[in-house]
């Protein structure tokens, strides 16, 4: 097994505050890895670094053997890393299916100048392709409502599903999921676990940030624990669960 994602000594400072402190870790291709840690530990910040929304103050990022530190977020999606957002960020003006079609953006014929001129008169073919990708992804995340509704009309749980579908539509090798189970009841989170496994079985690698320990322990191959910006433990779910440092970090918090 080779490392798909490799973080080397990533440090992220916001003013005088150090949100990530010398974080190094690697994610194996084809695995489901989880990142856990108390509130404010820096998990979302780490996702922002990996997906290029913030530029790390120090350290480097490697994906599939190449250094991609400093690339723009859209280039990083093109490399094969897609994400959802802890605070759902769907496009309210677009319908559910159109939201997911935006995710399929980079798999469609390029939107260059020629496309601007010819695009609208060639729209049906491209549209059909985008639509079929989107429908497939919505099926995959077991989204059951109509595709032409607008996201605000749906429950938060459904909106999270759509965001996962939108991220999947770009055909990523690595999928970053930030608290996808937040607000889900036990049966919904079981269903989500099955979906994440299915995504992994389709050949994608998943990095999961989650507070729902039952879900994390059930599906993860590896678990890393982040506390106050530092990785304090890494290992299999059971070894991490037994680690005294982890217990201390959580007890200090809960």
């Amino acid at each position, binding site marked *: 097994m080779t490392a798909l994602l490799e973080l080397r000594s990533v440090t992220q400072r916001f003013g005088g505050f150090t949100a990530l402190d010398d974080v190094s870790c690697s994610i194996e291709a084809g695995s489901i890895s989880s990142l856990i840690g108390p509130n404010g530990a820096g998990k979302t910040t780490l996702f922002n670094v990996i997906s290029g929304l913030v530029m790390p103050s120090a350290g480097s990022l490697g994906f599939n053997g190449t250094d991609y530190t400093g690339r723009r*977020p859209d280039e990083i999606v093109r490399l094969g890393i*897609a994400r959802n957002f802890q605070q759902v960020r769907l*496009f309210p003006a677009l319908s559910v299916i159109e939201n997911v079609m935006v995710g399929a*953006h980079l798999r469609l014929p390029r939107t260059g100048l020629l496309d601007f001129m010819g*695009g609208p*008169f060639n729209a049906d073919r491209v549209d059909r392709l985008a639509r079929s990708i989107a429908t497939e992804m919505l099926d995959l995340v077991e989204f059951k409502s109509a595709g032409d509704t607008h996201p605000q*009309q749906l429950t938060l749980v459904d909106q999270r599903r759509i965001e996962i579908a939108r991220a999947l539509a770009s055909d990523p090798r690595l999928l970053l999921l930030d608290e996808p189970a937040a607000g889900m009841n036990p049966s919904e989170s079981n269903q989500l676990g099955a979906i994440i496994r299915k995504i992994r079985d389709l050949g994608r690698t998943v990095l999961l940030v989650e507070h729902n320990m039952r879900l994390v322990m059930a599906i993860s191959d590896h678990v890393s624990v982040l506390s106050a910006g530092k990785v304090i433990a890494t290992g299999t779910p059971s070894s991490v669960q037994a680690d005294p440092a982890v217990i201390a970090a959580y007890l200090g918090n809960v």
Partner: protein
Amino acid sequence: MLSSYQESIAIFLGVNVLMAFSVYVPTSAGLISLGQAGFMAIGAYASAYLTSRFTAFDVPFGLALFLGGAAAGIVGVLVAAPAVRIRGIYLIIATLGFGEIVRVLFVNFEPLGGASGLSGIQPLTTLSWVVAICLFFFVFLWRLRSTPLGRAFVAIHEDETAAEAMGINLFRTKLMAFGGGAFIAGIAGGLYAHFALFIDPSQFGFSKSAEAFLFVILGGSVNPLGPVAGAIVVTLLPEFLRFLQDWRMSFFAVLLIACAVWRPGGLISYRRAAHP
């Protein structure tokens, strides 16, 4: 048949519809421009120069219009390259400044008549040209919404960060929105020049830009029907308000304030569903 008066109103309306489209395109990607008259001026001067001063070739009207639009579009892209990194209020003031710069440059550019303008332009703009071009852009923009580029515009408008995280190149997409809008403004300028037959820099001042901006804000920017509605209302309203004589603009001004208060999204806007 239309009387010649009605025909000139219709042509004028068509030019305004195109100006409205030229604001609509960048607006749909979240870029507000208060300087579209600058692009209109570039298109007007370029095409008028080609048809009436450029004697080496007999440039057909359609080509002159296209080249005028292209000149405006290229300037649009060049201007947008630094400008799209600017946001919100800064962008509004920057585009406003751009429009004024273009005007001042034409005032100082003697080969195109300077402050006294360019006259003797051939009367080539006919109602059929205007209708055909408006229809073309209407259909184009209508269909653009169901292309990847059109959706990218909306995505950027709604949430730049999420759009970028979905693989949309913000810089390139915004450049296209701005350049596309400038291109349409250039075409509108070409049609205007060959209808007015005389152009001077003062015709392309801030009020022209503000007017085009109002078409879209009044009409709405959800789809191309909004700018059309806005242009129709603003262009034809004064015709229906002739009885108000010197107070026509005041009526219009009150209408603007009322719209800002009661329909801030424009006449044609989303029905935003309440959050569950």
